[in-house]
C-alpha cells in the first residue's frame, strides 16, 4: 500500500474543469515532482490533495483511507500539509505565533527549537510580524509552519518562486536535509534543474492531464519530453 494513492481525480474552479482523471502515487520517504507548464493544473492538484479545492470525483487514499471531500482541517490532522504558492503567512501574527498556531492541533509536533535550528533566520526574527518579513523569510516561515506539524507528506508549491539565488541555495539545502531525513514530499517547482535534482520520480502534467510518469533519472535522459511539455 502506497502512502498516498490518487485515482481518477477531477477538480473544477466554479464550472471550469481543471483536472481530468489524475492518477498519482506517492510512497513513503519518496520525493515526487509534478512538472508542467504554467497553468497546467499542478497547484490545483496540490490544493485538491489538501482539501482546499474540493474534488468533484475521484479518490485520495492516505494510508488506505479515502480523504477526498473532507475539509482541509481534517486532512491536515491526518498528516498532509501544503506550503501554498502565495505562502499565506499571517501578517498580523509574529513569526513565533505563526509557528505556534500551526502546531496547535498536530498530534506529534516538532519542538520549536528544531525549527529554529533548521531556520536560524527565523529564530532571529521570532518576534517580527509576518508583514515585516522579506520574501525569503516568508517562504521559510511557510515551510516551517508545515514542518512543525510533523506531517506525513509535505506539498511544496513553487517554494523558490521570486526568490534571490542566494535564498534559493539556502532553501535547497533545507530541502536536501529533509530528503535525507526521509520526509515525504510532493514538489511543484518551475526551476527544473532543482526539481530534478531533488525528486525521485516525476509526473508531467499538461492541460490538466497526467501525460507522463517516470523516474527523474529517466526523464533527465530524455530531454525531448521536457522540451515537448515545458518548452515552446
Amino acid at each position, binding site marked *: 500500500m502506497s502512502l498516498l494513492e490518487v485515482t481518477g481525480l477531477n477538480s473544477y474552479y466554479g464550472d471550469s474543469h481543471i483536472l481530468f482523471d489524475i492518477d498519482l502515487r506517492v510512497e513513503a520517504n519518496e520525493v515526487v515532482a509534478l512538472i508542467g507548464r504554467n497553468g497546467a493544473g499542478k497547484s490545483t492538484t496540490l490544493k485538491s490533495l489538501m482539501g482546499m479545492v474540493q474534488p468533484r470525483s475521484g479518490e485520495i487514499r492516505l494510508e488506505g483511507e479515502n480523504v477526498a471531500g473532507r475539509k482541509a*482541517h481534517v486532512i491536515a490532522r491526518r498528516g498532509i500539509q501544503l506550503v501554498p504558492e502565495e505562502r499565506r503567512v*499571517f501578517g498580523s501574527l509574529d513569526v513565533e505565533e505563526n509557528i505556534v498556531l500551526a502546531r496547535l492541533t498536530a498530534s506529534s509536533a516538532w519542538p520549536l527549537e528544531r525549527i529554529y535550528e533548521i531556520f536560524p533566520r527565523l529564530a532571529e526574527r521570532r518576534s517580527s510580524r509576518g508583514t515585516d518579513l522579506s520574501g525569503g523569510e516568508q517562504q521559510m516561515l511557510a515551510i516551517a509552519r508545515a514542518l512543525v506539524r510533523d506531517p506525513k507528506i509535505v506539498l511544496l508549491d513553487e517554494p523558490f518562486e521570486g526568490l534571490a539565488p542566494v535564498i534559493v541555495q539556502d532553501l535547497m539545502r533545507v530541502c536536501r536535509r529533509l530528503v535525507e531525513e526521509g520526509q515525504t514530499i510532493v514538489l511543484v517547482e518551475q526551476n527544473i534543474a532543482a526539481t530534478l535534482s531533488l525528486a525521485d520520480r516525476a509526473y508531467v502534467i499538461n492541460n490538466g492531464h497526467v501525460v507522463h510518469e517516470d523516474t527523474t533519472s529517466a526523464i533527465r535522459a530524455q530531454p525531448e519530453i521536457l522540451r515537448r511539455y515545458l518548452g515552446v
Partner: protein
Amino acid sequence: MLTWANLVSQMFNGLVLGALLALISSGLTIIYGTLGVLNLAHGALFMLGGYAGWLTFDYTGSYIAAVAGGALFVLLVGIVIERGIIRFFYDRPHEDQILVTFGIGIVIVELVRLSFGSLSLSVTPPSLISGITNLGFVIYPTYRLAVVAIVAVALLALYLVLYRTRLGMIVRAGIEDAGMVDALGINVYRVFMVVFGIGAMAAGFAGIVNAPVAPITPDVGTEILVQTFVVVVIGGVGSFPGAILGGLIAGEILSLTSMINPAYSQVMLFAVMTLVLVVSPHGLLGVRGRQ
C-alpha cells in the same frame, strides 16, 4: 450654560457613552472581521443583555450576578444563533446575511416585548458605586465613573483574549485568512461560533452595564445599532483599535454637541462620518483585507 464644569462633565458623559459604544462596536467588528457577516441583530443583543441582567437582578438582587447573568445569557444566545442560522449563510451574499440578522433582531425584540411588555425597567447598582463623587473640579455620578472603569476592564479583557491567548491568535489569523487557518488543522467553523458568541457577549455586557444609566426598553437597541454603524464606519470595519477610537470619537461628538444644542448631536455625528468617508474611505484605522 457654557461653564467650565459643564464642559468637563459633558466630556465625562462623552467618555461614558464612547466607552460603551467602543465595546459594542468591538463586538460587531470582530464578528464582521472573522465571519464576514454584518450583524444587524447586534442592537437587539445589547437590549437582550439588559433584560437578562435585569431578570437576574430581580432574582438575586446582586448587581454582579446581573452583569454576569446578562453577559453569559447573550453569549449563549449568540452561539445558538450562529449554530442554528448564521452558519448556513457564510456562502450566501452579504445582502442575505444582512436580511437574516435584521430579521433575527426583530424576533428578539418582539419576543422581549411579549415577555416583558414595553415598560421600561431599571437596575440599581450597589451602594459602593452609586451616588455622586466630588472630583474636586466637578461633581459627577459615581456609577458613570464606574461604567468607564468597568468597560475599560472589559475592553482590556477583550484585548487580552484577542492578543494574548491561543484563541485570539486563531481569531486574528482567521480575520486575515480563514482558509489557511483551516489548512493548518484548525476547525475554523468552530472558531466562528466562538467569535460570534464573544461578539454578542460584548453587546450584551454593555447592555446590562448601561442599565442603571438609561432605562431598559425593548427598542433601546435600534438607536445603539445605528450609532455602532457610525462608529465602525469611522474607525474602519474589522479593526478592533478602530472600534475603540471610533467609539470614543463618537461619544465625545454626541455629548459635546448636545451641550451646545442637543438637537444637532446626531447630525454632527453623521457629518463627521461623511467627512471620514470622503477623506479616508476605509475608515481611520481600516484594513483592506475583507470585502
